[in-house]
């Protein structure tokens, strides 16, 4: 039997990296006596897979991992026991049974993620919201993506599924998963370049000829403190649409409560 666990990560625990979060939950499983299954062999390890690593410094309300159970346990009981075994900074939100099919694990079906971007430090120009709308209305947002071996130019606009200005914050729904993945900081970097905020290299943004216009913001940029953003992941989704139609459903929604 498989179960999906949703948790949030906040406060000081933002500074714990992905591998350490995995180690943390392995120990939580033991402390909370969750009947988790192990692989065989000389060094058995827990059957546990995380949907998507969260970078150091990010907080989240929607992190997921799937585990294999040896026997059923009620959702309420599991959530309670795990939270007793957790510390401030990590809170288990739900524990749900999911389909046993291999291709249904969070990692394989992950298709999208929501983020909230807030200004953590520094200032933005007064007209930044207008600039942001302009930026998002471009048909293409081309950036240079660095990979280990090469650099290639990609258009990230199709990977931005939704966006919204929420007060002074920015909501972004982005492609996530193993085939297409876009990190929110890349979007903000591209925006900064577009808007000419800060000393960022304008070469990295090519928006179909708009580069020259965007250069204008440089002088004012130097007078302000460089804006620094914080990123908060809100949710993660699977794509349940048919025939190429996208229909995002939260990973949690694909599971059901265990009595």
């Amino acid at each position, binding site marked *: 039997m498989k179960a999906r666990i949703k948790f949030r990560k906040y406060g000081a625990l933002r500074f714990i990296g992905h591998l350490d979060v995995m180690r943390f939950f392995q120990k939580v499983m033991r402390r909370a006596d969750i009947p988790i299954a192990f692989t065989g062999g000389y060094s058995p390890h827990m059957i546990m897979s995380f949907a998507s690593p969260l970078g150091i*410094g990010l907080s989240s309300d929607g992190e997921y991992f799937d585990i294999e159970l040896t026997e059923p346990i009620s959702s309420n009981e599991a959530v309670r026991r795990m939270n007793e*075994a957790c510390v*401030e900074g990590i809170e288990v939100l739900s524990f749900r049974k999911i389909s046993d099919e291999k291709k249904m694990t969070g990692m394989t079906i992950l298709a999208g993620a929501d983020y909230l971007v807030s200004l953590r430090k520094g200032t933005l120009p007064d007209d930044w919201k207008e600039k942001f709308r302009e930026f998002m209305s471009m048909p293409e947002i081309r950036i240079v993506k660095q990979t280990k071996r090469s650099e290639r130019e990609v258009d990230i606009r199709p990977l931005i599924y939704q966006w919204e200005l929420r007060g002074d914050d920015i909501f972004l729904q982005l492609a996530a998963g193993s085939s297409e993945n876009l990190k929110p900081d890349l979007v903000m970097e591209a925006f900064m370049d577009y808007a000419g905020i800060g000393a960022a290299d304008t070469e990295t943004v090519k928006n179909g000829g708009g580069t020259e216009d965007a250069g204008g913001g440089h002088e004012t940029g130097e007078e302000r403190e460089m804006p620094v953003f914080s990123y908060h992941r809100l949710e993660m989704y699977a794509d349940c649409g048919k025939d190429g139609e996208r229909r995002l459903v939260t990973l949690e929604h694909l599971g059901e409560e265990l009595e």
Partner: protein
Amino acid sequence: MRKLALSDDILLKVEKPARYIGGEVNSVMKDREQVDIRIAMCFPDAYEIGESHLGIKILYDMFNRRQDVWCERVYSPWLDLDKIMREENIPLFALESQDPVRDFDFLGVTIQFEMCYTNILQVLELSHIPLHASLRTDEDPFVIGGGPCAYNPEPLAEFFDLFYVGEGETAYDELFDAYKEWKQSGGSRREFLERAAQIEGIYVPAFYDAEYNEDGTLKSFTPNNVHAPAVVKKQVVMDVTDAPYPEKPVVPFIKATQDRVVLEIQRGCIRGCRFCQAGMIYRPTRERNVERLKEYARAMLKSTGHEEISLSSLSSSDYSELKELVLFLIDEFKDKGINISLPSLRIDAFSLDVMSRVQDVRKSSLTFAPEAGSQRMRDVINKGLTEEDILEGAGQAFEGGWSKVKLYFMLGLPTETEEDMKEIARLSDRVARRYYEIPKDQRNGKCQITASSSFFVPKPFTPFQWASMYPAEEYVRRASIVKHEFQEQLNRKSLKYNWHDAEGTVLEGVMARGDRKVGAVIEEAYRLGCLFDSWTESFRSDLWMQAFENTGVDIDFYNLRERKPDELFPWDFIDTGVSRKFLYREWERAMKGEVTPNCRMQCSGCGAAKFGGGVCYEGKN
């Protein structure tokens, strides 16, 4: 939510920010308004090293059992954060409350090895506490040192207000009670130190004067305050079974060096190896009750969620209930995916049997510590291990399927000859030969024998405290003799030889047997930029040498000089229970290559029987 001492910007900039945020499982939070005493316990090294240390875990747990005390932890900020804290003038803070260490009542420093001395000064300076105890005011905590290096505290004397000599379980309650009384009375700093000096095991360096002879040796060491005793007695907890033990140790977020439950099965060692300080200062050997250990194992695995449990002691094979305990651990936990790690086991049929049940024989390696290559040399150091034992053990292991063996040696031991050095290579080769005696179709390819040598450093309170050391070049020469001899061996392709660096050895020698004059070198080296000296990437031998030159302290005086039988040593004011007479007798026997039987075979009258328990009274109830 807990507020962190460091900003997000800094935490995102430094390597492993989890070192500085606290909040780990089982870390203890209290209301600062509800406690009378706040103590920051420090291991002056990186978090991952310090967090692995059992001693701090014991004290942390023991102190926090008191309602009136809140004990927190502090470690050395790594070089990247060190730089930022200096630039931005951020005071060093304790992990739990994230409050500045300077606001605490005590800063406790466990001093486990000599190469951390500059880090102690770092911790003081980053805490904005004056380096010199004499310059501290009512605004500063009392800085108290403990651990094995407190058995010769003299090189650090001016940096500490007090030292606790011996095992922490016995006298801290008295010290804390005295502190509370003193705090209420509104007395002076000096008054508290006078009160503390009367507690057994407490040494207040400022209350003693050292006088020197013309040749630089110690002439006299006497109290200058009526409250300070002439002799400071080491503390020993005789009932180790009922002594406090941390059933809920802190579980670090990042991987610490010891990322496992540690069960201390006994304290002390019956063996009496003449180079080994732990084997002398932790006498007498005291065993923990096996039933209690089983309870601890269960409770600690449950409270931490660790996936591994390890036994800790100086020589696990000498624990009389070892079989009972190990079989219990295997039966109880092996099926639950818990790894069982069994260090410091003598290789014999029993240990090979249990090891084959807890590890993958083909992947794991077996460790032997012959310490010396020749039988003559092993007799000098009183390592009760014969070549026959080693070859027999290795043979059984090879037949059991192992093919990797690690061998540990020391170089630069007293009376060591070129022959003794070469025997390291030859013994390693004989171990390999034993492997190739197994028919080809029954063995698992080539064997891999890895020999490592470290250079011997004489330590206070050992029979070798009289021994002289060698200059750095001589250590290098000795290692190269061994290296060359390895190349001469028949099975050289199955042998690998590593040796430790020699520059650190020389420094360690000066710190280990140094007197108060050495303090100036430590401070100068720190001022010149020395820090994390036990880390190869940050060790700066050149700066240390500069520090010796700048202060005029002579390395040769501490390391190369032959010490006379009756020379007064800087650490002689401490009474470890093991008499100087016994140690000297052992030194003489070493020179004659005479072996001394272990404590269970025959009592050699070291003096530790005066503590009234442990191995000295086994079978005598």
